């Protein structure tokens, strides 16, 4: 981790927006520079080091998407958080394709902005230091590329199935209850009668266990489920 203060560049032409961003970010301890145009932003990045960039999509001299592309082309690898007034998926996808890591739609609450900034910075340092591929038995989960392989075969999982599997592989051989799965994986408090968790466990089993001989996702009666090697091989 850095000993120094985290440095953030805000590329935003609206002086007032830029000012309150700077003020708020300063208050929680980040050092902030402001560029009012895309090209100014690019030259800031060329001349000094930043840990994160907050980029408005609407800039006076160029489209923020182009700015993001230029920044990436020039070799910036840190996180870019886009600010946009547009809320359609197409716009978000365009932003992410252009090289942004996350987006926030206007108007946003400052708390949310801070939370995103923290998450992006944490993710960035985690990628650099922690192994992003988790393994259990012959199962491999790549957290960055969100890929799952078993016996070398790639398995296609939906977002929810992936989050569920991630929770299990982060806690191998530990029995996990339904309520704790719901709260940790999806931030939901379910009624204990709900069958949602069981449904997803079954869907996940179909994909990661059904095609293979060894069944890793096991039921723990009265508790929940556990990711574990089968104990006694049946002959």
């Amino acid at each position, binding site marked *: 981790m850095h000993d120094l203060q985290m440095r953030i560049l805000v590329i935003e032409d*609206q002086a*007032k*927006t830029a000012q*309150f*961003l700077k*003020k*708020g970010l300063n*208050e929680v301890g980040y050092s902030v520079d402001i560029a009012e145009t895309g090209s100014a932003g690019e030259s800031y990045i060329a001349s000094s080091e930043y840990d994160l960039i907050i980029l408005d999509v*609407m800039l006076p001299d160029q489209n923020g998407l182009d700015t993001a592309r230029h920044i990436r082309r020039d070799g910036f690898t840190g996180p870019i958080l886009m600010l946009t*007034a*547009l*809320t*359609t*998926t*197409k716009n978000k*996808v365009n932003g992410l394709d252009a090289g942004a890591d996350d987006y926030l739609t*206007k*108007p*946003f*609450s*400052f708390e949310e902005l801070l939370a995103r900034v923290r998450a992006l910075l944490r993710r960035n340092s985690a990628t650099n230091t922690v192994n992003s591929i988790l393994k259990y038995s012959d199962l491999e989960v790549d957290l960055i590329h969100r890929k799952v392989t078993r016996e070398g075969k790639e398995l296609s999982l*939906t*977002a*929810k199935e992936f989050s569920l599997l991630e929770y299990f592989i982060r806690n191998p051989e530990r029995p996990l209850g339904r309520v704790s799965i719901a709260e940790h994986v*999806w*931030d*939901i*408090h*379910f*009624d204990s*009668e*709900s*069958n*949602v968790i069981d*449904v997803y466990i*079954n*869907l996940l089993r179909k994909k990661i266990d059904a095609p293979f001989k060894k069944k890793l996702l096991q039921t723990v009666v009265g508790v929940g489920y556990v990711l574990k090697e089968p104990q006694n091989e049946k002959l």
Partner: protein
Amino acid sequence: MKNFSLRTRLTFLFVFIFGSTTLLFSIFSFYKFHDTLLSDFDNALYNYTIDVSQTIEIGVKNDLNFPPLIVEEGKIFPFPSGTALILVRHISGKILVKNGEFGNFNPPYKKDIEHILAGSEASYRTLSNIDEIPEAEAGTYRLITFPLDSESNPTLFLQIAAPMVSLENQLEQLQTILTFGLPLVLLVAVVAGLYFASKALRPVQNIIAITNRIEASALHERIPLPTAQDEIRELAATLNSMFERIEKSFESQERFVADASHQLLTPITILKGEIETRSKEFINSTESALYKSLLQEVDKLSRIIKDMLLLARIDSGQNALQLSEVYIDEVVIDVISRLQKLASHKNILIKLDFFNQETRSPIEGDHDLLSNLVANLIENSIKYSPSKTTIEVKLTWDQLGSQLTIEDFGPGIPENARPHIFNRFSRADTSSKTMGFGLGLAIAQKIAIIHKTEIQILPKNTPGTLFQIKLIKKNNLKT
């Protein structure tokens, strides 16, 4: 007829005209041929009769000498020789001489004699009632009656009945040809009709297919103009210019929404940011309360703007959709997790259950819009639910897709308000105690409609509201 395609109708018309003409022509030919054959037969019979009459010798006292028939060799008669039945009859009707196997057969004569007395050379008639002839050679016999002794004042008549074997055979052959040939011709007409109708309509069908595709997804595409300078080319060109205008207006609509979003939301962002940073400076004071209230109003304002912009986007129809494969269960979970905080403020428990998950499959839809739809419904239920109640969300899959129900146990929507709740700026509770601006359900319903479905309010026994929406699987969608 109106329900059939143009191709079918054209084919039908073609077959009808072609078929009826052919049929009429065949019937006409048949009778014409029949007449010709009959007149040939009669001529031959007449010649035969002359031959026969010349062999008969009539005595002074009208006694007849009827020697065995000697028919001149080399003459061809249209009936087997020796099968003709020959008799001579007196004008009184008495049969004087017979030659041949008549059996009980007594040929009719009265009208024929009258006919001849009236001046005819001979009289003919076709007999089909010939049961009395033993071992008849054919189904019908032709009977000729001919004056034997004198042309001007005959008293003796020669009658010859000849089997119409060859004529019957020929007509039978023609009939066979027609009964097998006509359906064959009609079949050819159907196939040819279908072929030509398809061929003529293929350019139109192409245009329909391309137009559908353009309407559904790619507004920038155009119909390729055919090289021939015909009506089809004109149609294609007209449609193309229409697409041009639609694309332009769609673009300007998109641009408006983008501009309006930016222009309206930027000041609100600043307002919100300024208020937020400033409010931190005042803790536990009246000013802090003021800022909090200001912030609430700014949030309301931004919500209204976003909703209206969203409505404007949805109003532009199918083109606004960013379609992808969506697992509706995951959308529901995301929405619930987002609304958990709102619900827990009122101590409301959201219960979620899945049914029939063996048939789980994705639907095709716009992920963001669908999530907006579900959120609006659940938010509405939270808004109108009293504290410490539950909201039951159930998702049931079936072969056709899935069905989502959201049930709350609040006061429910009064019967008379139900038809209006999906209109803009209306809501069940007319007092302003409950927050909300009446756009949520209108948006939800619009989203449902552009996904080719509809939100329904189902009747229920307990108080409260039960929303239901059915989402159809991609391959079951009929476009």
